[in-house]
């Protein structure tokens, strides 16, 4: 079913989505979202909500089990803190894409801006284009896949999150190290990318934490540089 959002407030749009779900609708299209903020937050039923146009900040935040498609760009914080579910952004994403996400997938066909996957706790963030400044900053778990180039200070101060980059890595953040993807990494990358019809720009590189900053070490160069 369709919701015409142009004349509705954000609250009314979200209430209309919730009402549709309560009525048993599983395929919901929101027309003319006009890049407004906080749309489609906290959807925890296994429904599909499609936004026909760009959305603003925090679209799909706090969702679980739901599937969201954004036929446009997303602003800051798309999918932030989501427990599960899947989000697909056809365009690009602003800062903090998938911030603190815990599970499920977030796919951005275009490029992501600064701090993509910041403080990520699980799930998979896939970026078809490039990623921005400090992508993966302090990310704890989960996987970030960047088909294009890494941005400045990639993987700064990371924990166990793994980042795979298909393009160039012009700059690494504090304690980030480049390593070789394993066979199973490459299999995962190949199947994930083909499932989402995306391709790496070149050979896959893996970026992980050097683990020098996880515990304070007095003489450590990493600590001296980071501080």
């Amino acid at each position, binding site marked *: 079913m369709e919701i015409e959002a142009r004349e509705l407030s954000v609250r009314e749009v979200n209430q209309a989505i919730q009402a549709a779900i309560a009525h048993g609708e599983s395929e919901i299209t929101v027309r003319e979202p006009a890049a407004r*903020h906080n749309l489609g937050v906290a959807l925890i039923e296994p429904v599909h909500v499609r936004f026909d146009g760009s959305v603003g900040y925090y679209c799909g935040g706090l969702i679980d089990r739901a599937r969201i498609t954004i036929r446009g760009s997303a602003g800051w914080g798309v999918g932030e803190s989501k427990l599960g579910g899947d989000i697909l952004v056809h365009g690009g*994403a602003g800062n903090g894409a998938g911030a603190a996400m815990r599970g499920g997938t977030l796919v951005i066909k275009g490029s992501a801006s600064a*701090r993509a996957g910041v403080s990520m706790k699980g799930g998979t963030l896939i970026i078809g284009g490039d990623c921005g400044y400090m992508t993966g900053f302090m990310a704890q778990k989960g996987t970030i896949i960047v088909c294009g180039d890494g*941005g400045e200070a990639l993987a700064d101060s990371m924990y166990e999150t793994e980042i795979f980059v298909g393009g160039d890595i012009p700059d690494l953040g504090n304690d980030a190290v480049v390593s070789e993807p394993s066979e199973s990494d490459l299999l995962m990358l190949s199947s994930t990318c083909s499932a989402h019809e995306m391709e790496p720009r070149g050979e896959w590189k893996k970026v992980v934490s050097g683990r020098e900053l996880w515990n304070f070490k007095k003489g450590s160069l990493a600590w001296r540089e980071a501080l």
Partner: protein
Amino acid sequence: MCGIAGFASKTGAPARIGRTLLAMLSALECRGPDSAGVAIWSGRRAGDERGRWVARIKLGDGLSEAEASRRAQQVLGVAESLLPVRDVERTGDSVRLALDGEVDLDSFERAVEGVAPDVEVVSLGQSLEVAKQVGSPQKLDDSFDVRGMKGTHGLGHTRLSTESRIDLSHSQPFWAHGLADVASVHNGHITNYHRLRRIYEGQGVRFYTGNDSEVIGIYLRDRLGQGDSFEEALHRAQHDFDGSYCFLAATPDEFALVKDGFGFKPLIVAETSDWVAIATEEVALRAALGEGFETREPPARTVQIWPTMQAAHV
């Protein structure tokens, strides 16, 4: 918070500027409920209509109707003693003077601002006009007929005051005092403002407000005065300013955006064959320009400049 907006036409249709900026500012009002303002470049070149200037002057703060009228007469008197005044238009606490002849900007400012301590030349240029005040974008339009303003490009701002007073002088856009036809709008907080201010005050530069955003125009005037191109000055600003910022700045010929190195503040760009539009939030672009174009967020540290229609008519 604050919201900034910019629009540059590539193909003409000068009537579009005021309407488009107003629609963008209305959509950004929730980011900045304190004040609203626009800076519009009319397209008049320094070469044609030699010696045509427009001064927009704040007559004072919180004046009664009678006081404002009296101040306007005093300001007019001072202006007329310097050069011919072709037209006078008063709106509340502001007056717009159209002037003929050659203007020494510093002398004009000093003379007019000598009328009273709270008189300020808000903008002075051959192409640029700044209209700003406390209140909403709608109120700005009611006061100054923004939707009727025409030009090649323009900037807009809605203000949420964070560290300084709410009044006309502290609102944006800021004209770069003493530098004809250059203005800026800023979202963020320039954290080395006080250090920069001390340096400039040591050189005798006057600051009109306690608003950190004002230092952008002062910095640009300094760098351009030292021989930098506009592009060089903007790159240098991106390097020298600390803190969070997205700012837009323009001259008659160039329209530019600058983002800090951490990507602290949002800024969305859309470009078609007809125009370039920039705003803090995409809602503003959609409200003013509809669908049918894509948007992007420039990366942190971006400095990007577009030639304006005025540049095209060289």
